[in-house]
């Protein structure tokens, strides 16, 4: 089948600086994706390239098999039927809520236009605010207007450029979930840009992790957390540390915390230095364990403590322990490892050299 959205080997540059390099990804059948990454990683640029605001240096963008962009040719944004929600929402201040929503419905018959506007007002529960101006409604309501406005012309794909970042955390996840539901109901594909992984987990089926213009991994949230493809993803998604080790004769990794069995990176032979991803929930606090570590920092999280532990070698480890295990700084506590999926990387390799 034709993929819904297909980015193929994209380069985008603000000459002379390359902002996006060799990015390829595929979103299937109007699914919902997310581009996740720290600020400055190029995720907004990638989104703007998909919307048609940035020309490509290389590669192509296809939506439902139709080419939208290639080097030297960009279909104008107004002809793409791709909607966009902006970080600052960009509601038109001179128009009422319903006129904002109707902005993209030019050329529709008046009756159809009215029906569509009413439908969207209902969808985002803003019926009684239709005649207000944007500055007369609350921030959350403005978000809904922006969503309704972007969805009104029935775009095939909706791009969301951190539209929730101005909201506080609790509201943010609620709204992300709500937008997701609405997108599914409207049958519109979605692509969110975010730096907040929890927002991404809530919103998206598939998530791409971007780092300085490279797409490091395009995968489900579960896989990003449990099977990160490289060190950048491992350290960016969730918490954890990389524990140094060396491949022994038996193929296991010898570490300070004992031998760890797992699939070693391709091409690794005995004697190679490796690193093993250790999440805080992989480290079990066990007073009976012979392995001891010193409490260096602790953060109370309510149900649990997040301890930062010093190993004898000086390496650090994160450990989640139920919060009734209250240990003082400097105390030696017993730990053991309990890793479900062992994720191992070859050490001292530049992140760029790891499989992308």
């Amino acid at each position, binding site marked *: 089948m034709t993929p819904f959205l297909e980015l193929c080997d994209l380069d985008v540059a603000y000459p002379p600086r390359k902002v996006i390099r060799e990015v390829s990804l595929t979103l299937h*059948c*109007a699914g919902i994706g997310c581009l996740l990454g720290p600020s400055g990683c190029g995720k907004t640029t990638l989104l703007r390239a998909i919307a048609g605001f940035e020309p490509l240096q290389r590669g192509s963008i296809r939506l*439902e098999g139709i080419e939208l962009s290639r080097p030297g040719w960009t279909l*104008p944004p107004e002809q793409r039927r791709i*909607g*966009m929600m902006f970080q600052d929402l960009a509601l038109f201040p001179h128009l009422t809520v319903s006129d904002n929503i109707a902005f*993209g419905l030019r*050329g529709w018959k008046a009756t159809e236009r009215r029906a569509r506007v009413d439908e969207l007002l209902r969808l985002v529960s803003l019926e009684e605010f239709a005649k207000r101006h944007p500055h007369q409604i609350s921030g959350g309501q403005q978000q809904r207007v922006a969503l309704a406005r972007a969805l009104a012309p029935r775009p095939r794909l909706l*791009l969301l450029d951190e539209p929730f970042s101005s909201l506080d955390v609790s509201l943010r996840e609620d709204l992300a979930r709500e937008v997701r539901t609405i997108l599914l109901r409207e*049958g519109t594909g979605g692509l969110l840009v975010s730096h907040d992984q929890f927002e991404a987990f809530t919103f998206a089926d598939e998530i791409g992790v971007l780092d300085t213009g490279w797409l490091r991994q395009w995968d489900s949230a579960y896989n990003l957390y449990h099977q990160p493809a490289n060190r950048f993803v491992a350290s960016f998604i969730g918490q954890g540390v990389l524990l140094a080790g060396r491949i022994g004769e038996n193929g296991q990794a010898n570490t300070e915390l004992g031998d760890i069995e797992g699939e070693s990176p391709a091409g690794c032979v005995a004697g190679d230095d490796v690193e093993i991803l250790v999440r805080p929930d992989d480290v079990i606090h066990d007073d009976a364990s012979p392995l001891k570590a010193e409490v260096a920092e602790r953060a109370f999280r309510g149900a649990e403590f997040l301890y930062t532990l010093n190993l004898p070698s000086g390496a650090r480890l994160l450990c989640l322990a139920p919060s009734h295990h209250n240990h003082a700084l400097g105390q030696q506590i017993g730990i053991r490892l309990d890793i479900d999926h062992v994720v191992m990387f070859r050490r001292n390799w530049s992140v760029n050299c790891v499989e992308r």
Partner: protein
Amino acid sequence: MEVDPSAPPCPYSQSFSQSKRDIEPLSLSRRAKSTWIGARGFDRWTLLVVGVALLLALPVFAVFFTALQPAGDVWRHLVDTVLADYVLNSVALMLGVGLGTLIIGAPTAWLTAICEFPGRRWFEWALLLPMAIPAYIIAYTYTGLLDFAGPVQTLLRETFGWSRQDYAFPEIRSLPGAVLMLALVLYPYVYLLARAAFLEQSAAVLEVSRSLGAGPWRRFLAVTLPLARPALIAGMSLVQMEALADYGAVQYFGISTFTTGIFRVWFGMNDPTAAAQLAALLLLFVFTLLVLERLSRRQARFHHTGQRTQRPLRLQLTGRWQWLATGTCLLPLLFGFLIPAGQLAVWTWRTAPKVIDDRFLELTSHSLLLASGSALLILLLALLLGYGQRLQPRPMVQLAVRGAGLGYAAPGAVLAIGVMLPFAAIDRTVDGWAREWLGLSTGLLLSGTLFAMLFAYCTQFLPVALHSVEAGLTRIRPSMDDAARTLGAKPRQVLWRVHIPILRSSLLTALLMVFVDVLKELPATLILRPFNFNTLAVRAYELASDERLADSASFALAIVLAGIGPVILLSRAISRARSGYDPLS
């Protein structure tokens, strides 16, 4: 583009293909043929903006280009005889008017910004009223007031029983008189900028100096004044540019300056090259002032980087101090607006039945049509340039737009010459070609037409409108454009559907300002107007030059009344702005 029927069922495909049928106009297969070069490509907007900008920069280039030609006899004659006069008078005028506006503008600005005294709120905006009176109008109004037969001298003679030989009365038609006249109508520039600077001065700085034991005078001299200095210099530079550009007042007073020299050389000696050389020299003066003004403004911004703190309470003046303050503010208003406007009203009252006839109405409608037409055209061009620059923010476009603004501060006489030179050349070429090949004469196609006038107004006043447009556009976030684009609007439609409605009020202000500027424009109109085509300004000037002051008053008063409009807008903007507001920046 239809979903492949053999594809595995996609949960959303149903509603999706449904939605596509709803919006048939956007069929990709058709649209995909239209190519759109990327955002950094070369497109129609770039061509349009660069083309228009080059056209608008033409007069200034034409002046410099012509001036580079070898000097002829007239120029050598000028250098030997009157050039020194031109330079000296122009410089004296410039310095005198600069000083005069400083003396009037700075204290009134300080008083209305910092102090509290009877009438302060009223003076805040009323002090701008003299801006409504063009220099040539105040010049001949005072001439009528102060000459031998005028009301002042008559009153003196009647009161004291003097006759002509008994007293000496200063001659207003002199260089000091011209300085006074120009200062009286130009000081609002200094007042506006200085007032903004005084308001902006962080109260904290003043409080610190107070805590260090500085008394009020010390504070004023050591802190307030130096902090406001860039604004004062910027205001003075603007005023000096206006003084250099003045033609009507100095011509009426018979003072030889650059502008009157340009007229004399062009029309009297019939030497365009020498006129262009004079004009180029004048432009150099003006551009020096322009650079000075820009530098001061940059410094002014630097000075005000501190946080705005709450305004300190105004200094409440008491006793005779407060009446002194009221008097200080009343004087410029009295002499700069009330007296001349009153005199014009009196003359109009006396002569209106005779003057206001069908011709007067025809002339007024000419003027109004011309002014509103040019204002609209100029606003459209400003929108084109401002929006084009926003769409294509590349160095070439920005340079072109700056070039289009070269006419800013260029005296009207200079721009008129800059329009005449190329237009006459084109006319000559076309005429010569037509004679040779068609055996007929095409005569004047461009010079001496309304088009030439409109073109000159565009080069002269576009910067005013462009400034408003640019300032407005920067307040609209780029995401607005992008949002409209993703909602299906083409760039042109974004301008009409988003930017223009949002900027409506500031565009109207720009329109009104240009309208009034065109209405009172004199030198370029005098040079470029078609044969027998008159405007209010030209007629007022002609009548005054014929010593028919009272008859000209109706025309002048019409201009002054129109000029009050922008002043009211400016003053409203001032009262709206709680802290420093710089309507000229």
